[in-house]
């Protein structure tokens, strides 16, 4: 992979103890927490800031249309979640969240699919399909500017721990942990990229490298693949748990979806 050279250099410093399963303890100091936006080039920032030029709005528009359109025999999302029902403004900032009925951790994609199944009698939408990305982007866009804030107490605690474990666990052929890039080396260069602190507040987002819009799980799969580790499945419980850990770690950052990234 193209990261190989620089990761190789990181490894010289960090990979000489293959027996250590976890990276050393580290964090981003509370006062230093910055969105990935802060590490973008001006052109990319400008693309995110312009609600017309930002290609993510193609998906927001798609989601809004789906939200207001009835599929055969079902009521529309807007019937229940319109201005006079249970508006969804601000809710995305509190995801992932444990479903009170099943005790399962749900990210926004899963919460939308659950609603389709339980309240509309429809099949769940496929992860990473344009329709689910669009719906997620639309619901997330209703929380733009809201501070990220998640509950990690009670039934959520074990998911938070699982996510934290994944973040510090060294893996892949390069034997690197998320923390070694996003806690220990943020602000430094990895080839053409500046390593950010690895927050999820812009997702789903448009990535120029993808030439496409994608979920946070797609981004995580890229990071795992970059260190030559086996990526987890889309919508997997592990990535949901990582998402919760990342959200807690990013607490207070403004929601940006639909973000634009390199």
């Amino acid at each position, binding site marked *: 992979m193209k990261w190989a050279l620089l990761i190789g250099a990181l490894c010289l410093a960090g990979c000489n103890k293959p027996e250590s399963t976890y990276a050393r303890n580290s964090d981003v100091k509370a006062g230093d927490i910055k969105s990935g936006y802060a590490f973008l080039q001006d052109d990319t920032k400008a693309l995110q800031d312009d609600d017309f030029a930002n*290609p993510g709005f*193609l*998906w927001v*528009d798609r989601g809004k249309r789906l939200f207001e359109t009835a599929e055969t025999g079902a009521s529309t999302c807007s019937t229940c979640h319109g201005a006079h029902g249970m508006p969804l403004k601000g809710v995305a900032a509190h995801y992932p969240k444990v479903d009170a009925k099943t005790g399962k951790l749900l990210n926004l994609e899963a919460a939308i699919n659950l609603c389709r199944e339980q309240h509309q009698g429809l099949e769940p939408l496929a992860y990473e399909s344009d329709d689910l990305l669009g719906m997620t982007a639309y619901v997330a866009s209703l929380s733009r500017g809201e501070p990220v804030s998640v509950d990690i107490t009670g039934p959520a605690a074990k998911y938070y721990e699982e996510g934290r474990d994944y973040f510090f666990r060294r893996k892949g052929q390069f034997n690197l942990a998320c923390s070694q890039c996003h806690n220990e080396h943020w602000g430094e260069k990895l080839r053409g990229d500046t390593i950010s602190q690895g927050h999820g507040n812009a997702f789903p987002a448009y990535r120029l490298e993808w*030439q496409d819009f994608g979920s946070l799980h797609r981004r995580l799969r890229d990071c795992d693949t970059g260190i030559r580790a086996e990526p987890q499945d889309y919508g997997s419980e592990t990535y949901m748990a990582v998402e919760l850990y990342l959200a807690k770690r990013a607490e207070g950052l403004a929601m940006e979806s639909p973000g634009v990234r390199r």
Partner: protein
Amino acid sequence: MIRISAPDTAEMGEIVEVKAMIQHPMETGYRRDAKGDVIPRNIIKQFRCAYGGNTVFEATFFPGIAANPFLAFCLRATRTGPIEFSWTDQHGETWSETRQLTVS
């Protein structure tokens, strides 16, 4: 999906900005998939904007154009009439969208 930004009204002689974006992969034909097979080229070839039936902006696209092409340009408002945006891909399929401009 198509996104258009154009004013509904303008004064006679005013210069107005219009913007258009279409969701399209603009697959170059030079990339390969995970199995090593060439991903076939799939691009938009032509964009046209007609105002009151006359072409006022036209563009030919090539494989180097990024996905979801975005165009912005200016028109001089000279009469009330439709602004029609149309895209044609390499297979001849077309998409179009129309906005009405009222000039006072």
